[in-house]
């Protein structure tokens, strides 16, 4: 029984309760940084780390958190882990840090993290909170990767991963820069939403 719950809590982050596509929280930063595949990887890892750690800590100490001051405590926990990620990225992956820029510190105010702390971890066991954090983080990362893939490929005509070009569209293709700018984020996201809704509608019909 325990096993299935852990698996369920993990897997719900992908489709049933995907933070970006279904809950529609934390969109701002994901639309902004998904113009490159590589950004998606590091942003996904960073957010997942913060989410998992804050979920675990909050689930572990929830017995001692008085109701009236739970939000300030959540914020302290979340902000601490975000700062740790911020410093670590800057020290060990500085080129990535330069590109993700302000969006890393802004994970503090990312709805996903606070929503999971308040809506889930505060009432869950450590084990379930871990599964929830991992699942939500993975679901978020997946969407970022798909968007980053589409936007970078269409917007720049190639895919660059760790300074290696892994995919290239032949020269007559003139990449429209709109895809790597903000309007491209909305276009891509809307198309993904439409696809998901169509898939869901079909499932209901069946």
């Amino acid at each position, binding site marked *: 029984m325990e096993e299935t719950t852990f698996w369920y809590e993990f897997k719900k982050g992908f489709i049933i309760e995907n933070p970006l596509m279904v809950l529609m929280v934390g969109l701002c930063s994901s639309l902004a940084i998904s113009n490159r595949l590589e950004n998606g990887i590091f942003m996904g890892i960073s957010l997942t780390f913060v989410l998992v750690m804050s979920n675990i800590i909050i689930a572990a100490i929830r017995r001692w958190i008085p109701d009236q001051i739970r939000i300030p*405590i959540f914020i302290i926990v979340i902000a601490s882990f975000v700062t740790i990620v911020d*410093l670590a990225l800057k*020290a060990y992956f500085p080129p990535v840090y330069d590109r993700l*820029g302000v969006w890393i510190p802004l994970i503090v105010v990312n709805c996903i993290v606070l929503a999971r702390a308040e809506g889930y971890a505060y009432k869950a066991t450590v084990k379930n909170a871990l599964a929830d954090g991992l699942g939500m983080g993975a679901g978020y990362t997946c969407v970022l990767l798909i968007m980053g893939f589409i936007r970078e490929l269409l917007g*720049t005509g190639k895919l660059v991963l760790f300074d290696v070009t892994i995919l290239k569209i032949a020269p007559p293709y003139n990449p429209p*820069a709109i895809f790597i*700018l903000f309007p491209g984020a909305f276009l891509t996201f809307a198309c993904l939403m439409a696809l998901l809704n169509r898939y869901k509608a079909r499932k209901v019909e069946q």
Partner: protein
Amino acid sequence: MKQIMRLGTILMVVGLVAAVGLGLTYTVTREKIEAYDRQVEAKAAVAALPGVKSIEELEEDKELARKVSEVEGVEKVFRSDKGYIFKINTKGYGGPLVVAIGVGLNGKIQGISVISSRETMGLGSKVLEEENLAKYRGKTSDDPLEVGEDVQAVTGATITSKAVAAQARKALEAYDIIR
């Protein structure tokens, strides 16, 4: 009252634990971060003045350094056998735009290299590409260095183009003070 004390104590304990954790992380990463920043800066400075062998930061000459720092945006000056290199930090389109500009002993710009930028990829970043920055080579303080006059803006990146032109003007202004 008792309740407030209790809540305050809990918050304080959480805050203390968080502060200790952050302090440790900061101590571990500080050296790496500073070393990287210096490395990037030095690399860009050398690239801005072709042929230069060694550079030294202008600091012992305090009077001069102070005067130069009055030019808004000029953060550091390096002296070398081939001329001066200015580290200039001003606002671009996407945030701070930091460049190193090398000015030769003849008063001509020798090169511009980017230390850090947050300009839009594909638009503003085109202004900062080697071939575009090379157009500034040979400019002196007699040139107007205005977008639309002697410098061409990159399509879709007027603000970044203007920012770079302004930085070139500042470098030459600072050079005139030193000379």
